[in-house]
């Protein structure tokens, strides 16, 4: 996404968690920079929630260490918790209480006790999440999507520098999931939170994350920007060009372009698939060569594997 991050706000070194003989998280090391949206991507049971729980000082690592907002998770758990907003796997809301009462409790629990500041922050968040009109209703009467939005609002109430979001769109219908995803995107832009996002929804990671770490069986499989991960499995950038009419002369002309490494063609669809060593320089040159050879171009596509393909390749490869 072209953003430069300078300061690591989450640093994990050799983080390991064993439950008896089962190793849930195995020697994870990573950093999350200030203002970054960092995705922990993996299948169920990969160790995502355990990692977040260790970083939020809910469970202790068996081995390794981590710092969150400069605080050591083993030595300063209360300071770590104060600087972290967490959306847990379940919304964890008090259903007999109203939305306002839930927010009041968590605001004060996170030391936002000054009444004016507290009231204005809660109003701001409930309005942002479109829940202000329902603030006095019991949470039990809310839909799943509304509960999830309220849980995110709760995590934000004390303006935490770091947000841990564990499966924020899990269990939601597609419409609610999109709404929550859009709100998180707006949030990361507007409030500049550092977000550690646990998900197995590739769409969430693709849309929201600056960097992604794919984990499986508690191990770090790969880490990088979504583009880097794609490039890692695709190897070289690929362009697909749809022609009005196929002509062998065009293929020959294309092969002569300096950045072209390989050309494949499909006569029935009039498509050329071209592998380049540098897409940014090679693509315009290829287009020019086709036009010079008398070809008529209908469309040019950059062929990029989805994050899903990267993910499946990594996870299945491990299995």
């Amino acid at each position, binding site marked *: 996404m072209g953003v430069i991050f300078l300061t690591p706000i989450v640093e994990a070194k050799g983080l390991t968690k064993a439950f008896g003989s089962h190793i849930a998280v195995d020697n994870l090391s990573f950093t999350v920079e200030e203002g970054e949206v960092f995705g922990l991507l993996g299948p169920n049971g990969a160790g995502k929630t355990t990692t977040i729980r260790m970083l939020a000082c809910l469970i202790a690592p068996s081995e390794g260490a981590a710092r969150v907002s400069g605080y050591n998770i083993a030595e300063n758990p*209360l300071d770590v918790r104060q600087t972290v907003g967490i959306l*847990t796997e*379940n919304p964890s809301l008090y259903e*007999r*209480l109203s939305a306002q009462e839930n927010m009041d*409790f968590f605001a004060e*629990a*996170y030391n936002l006790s000054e009444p004016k500041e507290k009231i204005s922050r809660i109003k701001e968040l409930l309005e942002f999440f479109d829940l202000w009109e329902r603030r006095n209703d019991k949470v039990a009467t809310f839909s799943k999507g509304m509960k999830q939005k309220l*849980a995110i609002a*709760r995590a934000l109430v004390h303006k935490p520098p770091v947000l841990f979001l564990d499966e924020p769109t899990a269990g939601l219908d597609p419409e609610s999931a999109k709404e929550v995803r859009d709100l998180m995107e707006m949030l990361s832009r507007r409030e500049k939170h550092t977000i550690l996002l646990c998900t197995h929804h590739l769409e969430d990671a693709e849309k929201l994350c600056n960097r992604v770490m794919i984990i499986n069986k508690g191990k770090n499989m790969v880490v990088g920007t979504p583009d880097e991960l794609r490039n890692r499995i695709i190897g070289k950038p690929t362009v697909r060009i749809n022609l009005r009419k196929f002509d062998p002369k065009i293929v020959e002309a294309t092969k002569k372009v300096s950045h072209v490494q390989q050309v494949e063609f499909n006569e029935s669809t009039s498509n050329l698939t071209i592998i380049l060593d540098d897409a940014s320089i090679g693509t315009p040159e290829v287009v020019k060569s086709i036009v010079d050879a008398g070809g008529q171009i209908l469309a040019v596509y950059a062929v990029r594997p989805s994050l899903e393909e990267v993910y499946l390749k990594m996870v299945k490869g491990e299995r």
Partner: protein
Amino acid sequence: MRIEKAMLVFRKDWHEIRRNWQVVLPIIVVPLMISVFLPVILGVIPNFATSQGDSSSGFEALIENLPNHVLEQLASMTEMQVMLYVIAVYFFAPFFLIIPLMASSVIASDSFAGEKERKTIEALLATPISDGELFLGKMLVSFIPSMAITVVSFAVYTIVFDVISYGIFNSILLLPTIDWILLIFGLAPTVALASIGLTVMISARVKGFREAQQISVVLLIPVLALVFGQVTGAIVFGPVVILALIGLFGLVDFAVFRAGVKLFNREEILTKLA
């Protein structure tokens, strides 16, 4: 330890509990039975017993063990007055140790186990509220309502017995006595705190509310022993006995609270989710 954080946990839980009639109803009904219905029924017994010519009604053991100065007082009373006096001042005293225990048992069992069952525990444990503040808050939400209901029950009980005895004792009010004041405001809170602390510890360690409640029933046994002891005359709740018990249970409270905070383990609570 920040008391305001413990009070915050108390207020949150109380807001939830007061809207749950399944919890509130037993808290009100049991004390009401002890403070109103039983005194009314037993208050009638002396009249019935004396009219039948049976003055004992099973209280001899208790009367025989009363302190000498009380026995001297009883010597100048009629049979009916003796029985009413013994029932009002001595017989029911230990039952008021059961009221806070029964009233708090449901709430204390629900404290952490209920949050696990309702899947609200993780967000609570993720807050920067310390172990001690959380533990104290959960104790207070059981302690404050149960003591409030105990004091109200005592007030009702006093009025009921004073109304019954006013005519029989020539306008003298039997209650409250110094023993009762010590019992309600000294012994009942210390006994309740010990029981609540242990129940909250159990609640943090089990998966669900029912399990916590079943285990915590065991905690009633020592108090039931006191009740049995008083009714049979083995123990008589005089000021010295009550003060000694207050001291003893005060120490137990301190030890239970220390142990509760020390053994409080967020990881164990989370990994035992229902």
